[in-house]
């Protein structure tokens, strides 16, 4: 690159900044993905698992061999066979089909709750870290209070208030994600504040709002992405545990957690396939999210490790 290019504004770059050129955007995303895959093959396996889960969830009605809700009293608690690959449950429903549909709820709940919770944490953390002073002091005491509950207990409290259901589970889990993401983002913002360009922006008269949006927020995007992916595993666990306790997704809707509720009480010789397969599905989903999150952290922001751990 020649000197003149660095000093003079490049007309081509300006155009790209104004309107995202689709082919170049796709190419850049593809390039970034390939770099990510090369940097961490294990993280890529995690990403691949999530991709497969997404496909299963999207096309559940085409892929699932049977209706997940249809009871079949002629085929109760059948062990895995060619007809029912993962067996049938206490109402004769096909476990494989229920797991495939269960991924839908797993994905919807984990993605939306993490998105909502971390969006609030993102905004709150930036405001708290950048504005400081009284806003920081008071709002961080609210974070203290939210942090004083074990996450699952806080979610249970919120659910008994709002009633079990898909939306309320999402909100309850989102709330439990807010305090930690707020803290992490706040700590990143505190170090961003030290940069000279923040001071420079103040000097030329930029408003606080403008500085937060244009100068602070872009610095915090990578950390929040990492925090969000690392939160996915926790959100999946939370949804499954809440549903297992009977406070989350109400039956008969198939959620991986509520499929495990009461499986051992139902029969003298408990059907092992009812215990093993839904739990394996949860474990793989969490593991994939963790592997992807760890790899993404190393890829995007290695310094963040200390703040999260």
């Amino acid at each position, binding site marked *: 690159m020649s000197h003149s290019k660095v000093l003079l504004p490049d007309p081509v770059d300006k155009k790209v900044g104004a309107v995202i050129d689709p082919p170049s955007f796709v190419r850049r995303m593809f390039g970034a993905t390939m770099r990510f895959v090369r940097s961490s093959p294990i993280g890529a396996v995690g990403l691949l698992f999530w991709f497969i889960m997404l496909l299963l969830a999207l096309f559940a009605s085409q892929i699932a061999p049977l209706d997940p809700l249809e009871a079949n009293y002629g085929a109760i608690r059948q062990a895995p066979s060619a007809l029912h690959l993962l067996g049938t449950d206490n109402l004769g429903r096909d476990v494989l089909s229920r797991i495939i549909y269960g991924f839908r709820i797993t994905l919807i709940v984990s993605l939306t709750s993490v998105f909502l919770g971390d969006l609030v944490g993102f905004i709150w953390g930036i405001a708290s870290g950048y504005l400081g002073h009284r806003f920081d002091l008071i709002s961080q005491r*609210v974070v203290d209070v939210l942090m*004083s509950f*074990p996450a699952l*207990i806080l979610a249970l409290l919120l659910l*008994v208030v709002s009633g079990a259901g898909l939306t309320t589970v999402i909100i309850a889990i989102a709330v439990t994600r807010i305090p930690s993401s707020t803290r992490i983002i706040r700590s990143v913002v505190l170090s961003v504040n030290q940069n000279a360009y923040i001071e420079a922006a103040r000097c030329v008269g930029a408003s606080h709002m403008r500085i937060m949006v244009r100068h602070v927020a872009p610095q915090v995007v990578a950390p929040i992405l990492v925090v969000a992916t690392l939160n996915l595993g926790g959100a999946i*666990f939370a949804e499954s545990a809440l549903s297992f306790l*009977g406070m989350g997704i109400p039956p008969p809707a198939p959620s991986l957690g509520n499929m495990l509720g009461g499986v051992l009480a139902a029969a003298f010789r408990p059907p*092992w396939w009812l215990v093993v397969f839904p739990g394996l599905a*949860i474990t793989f989903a969490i*593991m994939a999210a963790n592997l992807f999150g760890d790899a993404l952290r190393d890829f995007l922001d290695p310094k963040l490790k200390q703040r999260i751990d």
Partner: protein
Amino acid sequence: MSKYILNRLLIAIPTIFGVTVLIFVAMRVIPGDPLQLIFSESTGVYVLSDDELAAARASLGLDKSYPLQYLDWMGDILSGDMGSSFWTKDPISAMLIRRGPISAQIAVMAVLLSWLIGVPVGMLSAIWRNSLMDQLSRVGITIFIAVPSYWLGLLIILFTVLVFSWRPPITIIQLWEDPLGNLSMTLLPAMALGLPLAAGIARFARSAALEVLYEDYIRTARAKGLTDYLVVWRHVFKNAMLPVVTATGLALGGLLGGAVSVEKAFAVPGLGSLLVQGLTERDWMMIQNLVLIYGLIYIFVNLIVDVSYAFLDPRIRYD
């Protein structure tokens, strides 16, 4: 040191106040009031006339204004009166005394187990970095961090039922009454909670030990001729413990919450299953006070973790 502890205690007070306010507000946000909720759900079984409802409301103090209700609640808590279950009329404090020790014992055993397994695995894995043992333990860590504790509990029960035709007892046997009987009901839940925790501890112990291993003082210790054993035990171990304590502190929230679902999986009659029972039966006094207890325990345990940092690391004390 005592100044540091006092300082921490003072900081906890506004947090505890906030916790009580949050619980109170949450319990009052329920449309109508707690009684409305209870009776609207069981209209077929248990119908009260409006007069009876009003009387019940008055006897529970629900006809007063919100600030008064809050003050009543605080007064009761401070005088040690937790009220009683709405359905069984059993005093909540008696249930806490009966069930609390079991839950506490399971939690403590789980932490001990996680340290017994996690610390050595993590340390050895760091010392023999990239050895077969390190590779295996890293795979194990990745798996066990992802395994939900309650599912591990279900697997353990499934195994004992199918192989030994044995189910863990579901009565309350205190440790001081019958140690063996007590262990037969607490050991397996402690394993279910402790193994995923052990994976987390091992991960922290490994990364902490790896950092310490490259410190100058380790080279100095080697250079002055200490045996490997002494270097590891006196220098690496001691300095790697601080992050492990931190990790344990961070994990305790998950442990307390996870214990609820593990107790449900094993049908252990502990605090967690009491909370679940309260939640499903909408026993609002029980929910309100149990959630408060969980919050207080968590704050208290975090306080102990903070103090133990200061104990382990003098730099924190003088901050």
